């Protein structure tokens, strides 16, 4: 059974249709990438899945249950975790405290403060943030903030993790580390749904890819097949082409598995 199923979701803002009749599913343990030009409706899709926006039509199923009307925090408790494209750390908290929020509230287990702190420290290690644990988040660099986004979402003990452009804006080395981290997350049994413009990363990671354009899904399948699809190529004309980016960034593909430097 699919872990996540979107069934004909439609969402409009005023006259602008952001997502139109969108259906796809994510299998347990799978990495599914959602790609498409800017404004294609990817972020809206994430908001619909995490409950920050309500669809006008269509349904969302998670692990067989209809969660279309569920509140965001209830979805988090069921196992839907997400990051934000524009990093949104909790200011006035340290890195560790940010992660503790997830450990304290993100799941149905009720952990004591000490347990939450201990488990948050473990996640800090996993995400390579141990050295920064006691730091105030104000003043962290982009790469560390992105890692914190992922770590904080992991702390909610998700079964499905939505990653919103966690590789964008990183140096090639940092991007390789991110690829390694995402792979470790999946190997830990968490399904990943990711949005990204870094095509090399998407190619290395994704089991399946869905392509959005103007809110509609125009292709779905393995990255190699999708990248050759004439409709997809046309959608990307004027943007950085899928193929072009995949070749220029191709240096990463060969040694992505080495990207475990912590």
């Amino acid at each position: 059974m699919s872990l996540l199923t979107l069934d004909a979701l439609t969402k409009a803002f005023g006259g602008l249709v952001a997502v139109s009749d969108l259906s796809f599913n994510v299998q347990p343990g799978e990495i599914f990438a959602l790609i498409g030009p800017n404004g294609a409706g990817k972020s809206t899709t994430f908001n619909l899945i995490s409950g920050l926006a309500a669809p006008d039509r269509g349904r969302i199923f998670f692990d067989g249950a209809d969660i279309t009307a569920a509140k965001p925090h209830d979805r988090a408790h069921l196992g839907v975790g997400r990051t934000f494209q524009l990093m949104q750390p909790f200011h006035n908290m340290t890195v560790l405290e940010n992660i503790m929020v997830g450990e304290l509230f993100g799941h149905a287990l009720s952990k004591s403060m000490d347990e939450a702190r201990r488990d948050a420290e473990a996640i800090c290690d996993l995400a390579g943030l141990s050295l920064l644990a006691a730091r105030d988040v104000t003043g962290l660099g982009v790469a560390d903030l992105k890692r914190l986004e992922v770590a904080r979402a992991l702390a909610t003990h998700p079964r499905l993790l939505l990653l919103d452009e966690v590789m964008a804006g990183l140096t090639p080395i940092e991007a390789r580390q991110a690829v390694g981290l995402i792979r470790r997350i999946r190997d830990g049994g968490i399904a990943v749904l990711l949005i990204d413009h870094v095509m090399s990363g998407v190619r290395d990671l994704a089991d399946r890819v869905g392509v959005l354009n103007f809110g509609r899904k125009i292709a779905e399948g393995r990255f190699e097949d999708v990248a050759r699809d004439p409709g997809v190529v046309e959608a990307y004309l004027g943007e950085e082409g899928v193929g072009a980016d995949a070749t220029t960034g191709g240096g990463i593909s060969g040694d992505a598995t080495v990207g475990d430097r912590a």
Partner: protein
Amino acid sequence: MSAGRAERSVRGRGGARAAILVVLLIAAVLPLWVGRTQPYFLQLSLNILIFAVLAVSWDILARTGQLSLAHAAFYGLGGYTSVLLVTRAGVPVLIGMLAGGVVAVIAAAALGVLTLRLRGIYFAIGTLAFSETLRVITKQLQFTGGSSGLVAPPLLGGALPSQYLVILSILGLVLLVSWQINRSRWHFAFTAIRTNEEVAAVMGIDVIRFKVLAFAISAFFAGITGAFYAHVFLFINPFEAYSLAVSVGALVAPILGGLYSTIGPLLGAVALRAGEEVLRSTIRSGYLIIYGLILSVVILYLPRGLLGVWAGLVARRAPRPAREGAWGGPR
């Protein structure tokens, strides 16, 4: 930070905490002792404690990012509820005060749900409108005594020392609640909600529940204090009960002392009321000018209040970047 240093700093903090506690206890009992010969001093201390309860309880709500201008609404509601229950239904004064707190909680839950969608400035204006609407209604109604108000029966036969102990207990309770919140998981929920409600929700925090809860706790203490005020000063009218000065005072004190803490609002309330008292004896009217001056100066120059100044002095050897302005991180 090495383990040894961390331990030392924890022990140091524990020592500081014990010292603060001792100072607070002495300060709390001193007025009773001095007040035997100088009742004015006891009266002033009682006023300061009323103000401190309002400041600390307002701060608890502010921790969720809700800047309320409706603290006077709950203060007034509590007062009227208690006075009406005691005079009309013959309820004992202490029970009436408790009922005042409960009615304030109910009103707060209702207002909290209504204003959930309002953020920042809209929330402030909306709560102010709520408070002022209550004042107009109370002024117009018959059974609340209209604009002349009601006479309130005295608390504990009007014995000032006993009354002082009552408000001291209420203050102790609100300090305890505030302190507990800040060292529990609630602190994480409140701070997360204040920073970004949507992210907090996605992280699994039931935002509505915590916002309304904070509203209710905050209003309970405002309500019970409003009732206390009425039964100590033996009357209640719409202008004093729903006075904007109550809402403003409750907000200026934590800003002066240091927001989102337990000691900050307490410190701010004591400093502000004491300063006001000095000023009141030199200029008879218009002494509220000090509120305006302090608010402006603190916002412009000390965004973290007196506690921030203190922390800055302590941390001079190891400077640390300022954590936030008065109202959370950058927009």
